[in-house]
């Protein structure tokens, strides 16, 4: 990443794609209360995405608003991390994904709240409280699933094994950015390790470290997500909604 535009765009894309995936759960959650909770979290991510993308558009100065950035870029132009674009899988995959994401977003937004850029600081101050709730919610579920039944333990461990490699990308050093992601690693570990331990889940060894999302080299999943998300907006160029 290079400047504040790229940084802000990447964070906005993380939040937008996360919101899109969480929105897929609507009407499908394991209990009604969880339908409400997942919608809440999706709304928080979407809210953060709107603020970040709007600000990214201003930083760019090319006249692109939040919708132009959300609906009129293809996957090679999206800068989100790979973690958020992976398919939802079962509820364990979704909750482990949210745990990893929010354990990154909490220290990120907290650091942002104290940064020199006032707009980013305001966004960070708002979003960190929401992320703290996402972290609590996902941590509780990961414990329930990990230390629940044999079936739920098996699924939760499979989810951790599947997703663990994708967290590395989140902490790729970027010293020039308003917040250097590499500096957030310790906070992440301090949160995630005890949750996994309490959940009786094994933290996988660090091996494969997939990345590329910040450079627009994504998994094959993202272009399908965008095809669906953008279909209506793109079908009516220039229309107001």
């Amino acid at each position: 990443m290079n400047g504040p535009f790229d940084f802000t765009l990447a964070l906005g894309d993380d939040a937008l794609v996360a919101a899109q995936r969480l929105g897929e759960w609507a009407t499908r959650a394991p209990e009604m209360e969880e339908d409400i909770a997942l919608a809440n979290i999706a709304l928080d991510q979407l809210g953060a995405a709107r603020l970040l993308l709007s600000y990214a558009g201003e930083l760019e100065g090319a006249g692109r608003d939040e919708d132009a950035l959300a609906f009129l870029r293809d996957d090679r132009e999206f800068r989100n991390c790979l973690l958020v674009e992976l398919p939802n899988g079962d509820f364990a995959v979704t909750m482990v994904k949210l745990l990893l994401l929010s354990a990154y977003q909490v220290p990120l937004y907290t650091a942002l709240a104290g940064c020199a850029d006032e707009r980013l600081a305001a966004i960070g101050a708002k979003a960190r409280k929401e992320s703290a709730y996402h972290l609590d919610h996902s941590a509780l579920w990961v414990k329930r699933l990990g230390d629940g039944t044999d079936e739920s333990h098996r699924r939760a461990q499979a989810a951790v094994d599947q997703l663990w490699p994708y967290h590395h990308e989140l902490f790729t050093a970027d010293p020039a950015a308003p917040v250097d992601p590499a500096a957030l690693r310790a906070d992440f570990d301090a949160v995630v390790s005890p949750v996994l331990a309490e959940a009786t889940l094994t933290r996988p060894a660090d091996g494969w470290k997939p990345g590329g999302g910040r450079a627009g080299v994504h998994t094959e999943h993202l272009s399908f997500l965008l095809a669906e998300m953008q279909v209506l907006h793109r079908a009516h160029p220039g229309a107001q909604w």
Partner: protein
Amino acid sequence: DDPAAYFAEVIDADHKIEPRDWMPDAYRRTLVRQIAQHAHSEIIGMQPEGNWISRAPSLKRKAILLAKVQDEAGHGLYLYAAAETLGVSRDELVELLLDGRQKYSSIFNYPTLTWADVGAIGWLVDGAAIVNQVPLCRCSYGPYARAMIRVCKEESFHQRQGYEILHTLAHGTPAQRAMAQDALDRWWYPSLAMFGPPDGDSTHSAQSMAWKIKRFSNDELRQRFVDMCVRQAEILGLTIPDPDLRWNETRQAYDFTQPDYDELMRVIKGEGPCNRQRMEHRRRAHADGAWVREAATAYAVKQRAGAQRERVAA
């Protein structure tokens, strides 16, 4: 001290029956059926609109739609809670829905084919629901009346949002305008049918009116809805698909074509375009979530046992 006399008195005085009060079995059964059906409708009703969350054409509309579908889940929860005050559990009611022994509103058995359908559902379907539900805020059963007050407030918010979607489309590009008119064409008669069969054919109405569960007949409510929509459609610049719609000076109301009640009966029977899809979706979500609910229960048991051990050791 005659509980039946007390019940009659409360009804008569337009006061509220509360959960601990004596009530006739038939009153209780009627309420359970009606509240449960209403709760089920909120839950199943999330599907047609949920179908467009992933494709909403702007981020603002996506947020509004997500929040709306979330509100419906919330309404489902209050209504199940209201039904629970009558001595049934939510789990039992959910089973009755999944088994097909209890119904939900037939309107949700129509598909949402375009984005304009999201607007039409907000305007017409929520609009019809409000016309139905506003009198329920004065229903004789306290917990239901109170739930309805909260639901109606949010529903009228949703209705405005739906109307606003259609208004934007109707004043947008020719393709958007056509989309809005097409949605009105498809949703108009099913919305009229939401008020149920004509009064002559309505089976439960008289008793419900006597008990002050219901306050107006199906046909009265339908008329109120039509009169409201005609003015709103004019502002939208859309045409209600009824060539016989016209103002009747004598009645001070609009004459209109009745919906196809045979179609309504077929849809209630299970032969609407989406009955099977809606039920399968609900059953699959419920079945897919079973292992999660079991895990949550097992974890809670372990946690309680742990807390118990700690108390004993202390």
